């Protein structure tokens, strides 16, 4: 098995008396899109800033691309790309100039034009950053991180404040990185974003990891109770929770057919990732305040 892109063991971070990160372990495989989820104040940003080399940790072992970010130097930063929580663009430089500027910082940059195309800003290449929409500025931000052709890309809450269409365009850009074989460490507090993009999801709450897995099996959703909903002949909403939806559906539809009725608005749902997330993080928060 190849070396993991990121491995963390027993990471702790304290600010004075406050413990933001209380001993977490995690591993991100090379080439994987990894989503790190959690509510505000859960320890997400502290963790990602330690991984990026911005912050010195209080304790634990951290390895990013085989080096300790606290001591790693320029050669290491040549292999990573960082997109911070807020845009950090020069408003008076154009898209092309911003990317050219960052291309100069790295030893083996990608082609500038190719990078502009990759983030879908071909038509905006000669527009100044200040003229771009919020979503376009964010994609430029990603382009400035990608032009160095990094092996590992950090994206810290990249779509906060986006409208739905800007979010979808952004997701297409990130999905495209999978084909380039990049490792992506994505922090977000949007469930749908993690579900859409990530190979693996880890949820942090109150400084501890409360769940990890693929978006599909997180929180054992596969085996959780399903909900069957329909309206009966009188038009009343019926909702049935069952661990065995196949047999239950068979019984319901069989009976309905025998009576010559429809099951209006029939649907079968599993708890969404959002439901799992909310129940996991609220449990952790309660535990934290006790």
């Amino acid at each position, binding site marked *: 098995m190849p070396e993991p892109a990121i491995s963390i063991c027993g990471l702790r971070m304290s600010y004075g008396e406050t413990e933001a990160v209380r001993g977490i372990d995690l591993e991100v495989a090379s080439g994987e899109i990894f989503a790190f989820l959690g509510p505000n104040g859960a320890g997400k940003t502290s963790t990602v800033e330690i991984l*990026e*080399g*911005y912050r010195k940790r209080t304790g634990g072992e951290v390895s990013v691309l085989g080096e300790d970010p606290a001591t790693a130097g*320029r*050669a290491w*930063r*040549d292999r*990573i790309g*960082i997109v*911070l*929580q*807020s*845009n*950090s*663009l*020069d408003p*008076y*430089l154009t898209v092309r*100039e911003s990317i*050219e*500027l*960052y291309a*100069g*910082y*790295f*030893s083996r940059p990608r082609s500038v034009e190719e990078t502009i195309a990759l983030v879908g800003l071909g038509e905006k290449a000669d527009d*100044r950053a200040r003229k771009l929409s919020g979503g376009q500025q964010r994609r430029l931000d990603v382009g*400035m991180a990608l032009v*160095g052709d990094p092996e590992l890309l950090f994206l810290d809450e990249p779509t906060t404040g986006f409208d739905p269409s800007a979010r979808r365009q952004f997701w297409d850009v990130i999905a495209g990185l999978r084909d380039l074989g990049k490792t992506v460490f994505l922090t977000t507090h949007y469930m749908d974003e993690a579900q859409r993009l990530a190979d693996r999801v880890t949820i942090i709450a109150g400084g501890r990891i409360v769940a990890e897995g693929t978006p599909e099996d997180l929180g054992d959703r596969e085996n959780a109770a399903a909900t069957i909903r329909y309206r009966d002949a009188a038009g009343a909403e019926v909702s049935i929770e069952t661990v065995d939806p196949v047999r239950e559906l068979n019984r319901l539809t069989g009976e309905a057919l025998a009576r010559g009725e429809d099951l209006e608005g029939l649907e079968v749902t599993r708890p969404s990732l959002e439901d799992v997330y909310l129940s996991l993080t609220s449990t952790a928060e309660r535990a934290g305040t006790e």
Partner: protein
Amino acid sequence: MSALALVGHQFRFDQKAFWRNPASVGFTVFFPVLLLVIFGSIFGGSTVAVRGTHIETDTYYVPAIITMSIISATMQTLAMSLVIAREDGRLKRGRGTPMPSWVFIAGRVGNSIVTAVLMLALLAVIGGLFYGVSFAWERLPAILLVLAVGAASFSCLGIALTAAIPTQDAAAPIVNFLLLPLYFLSGVFIPEDQLPSGIIHFADVFPIRHFFLAFFDAYVPGGAQAVDWGHLLIVAIWGLGGLLLAIRFFRWTPRSG
């Protein structure tokens, strides 16, 4: 890229951004020209007593406004633009790349010094064409030396000052609050024969007065020497102090958040 090529690379983009920013062009380029025109119109035609000899008011104001524009291109521009870049997260972002941090600062300082030289040329030409203040070419080496020491020193002071500016909004008020009164008290805006000696003594504590005197002596022939090393040394000591403070207190990450 080699470190020097990288500084050139950074400088190229800083120049573009500078000239496209209406606030920086307005304050750094047009404002000093406007002041020269205003002072020339109000006080032109009279004379000023400078250490016993009377000179034309215009001859006084051309080097005075050049002094101010050099401080504006360096200290003022750097303090404001670095705070804006810091609070935008641009400094932090740059720290996350393989570029050495000092290259970013060097690019900005280079931008400021080039702008200062351009302002010297622009104001000297305006002074020559419209106010009959001829440029003493034989003094060029002295002028450039004083400019270099002043630009470097006020650049250091501007970088150091960023540590005392908490937000983007606070940058312009803090910088102006420090500089504007000192321009008046140091004889840059008001001819020194109008200023009480107590005020001159007060202004002597700060570097603006010394830089103005050093630049005036270099620019206006007739004084005893082209380079007044005493004044220049005081400016350089202030600059060194700024450099030490900047090394100790400069921050790359936003204050807010």
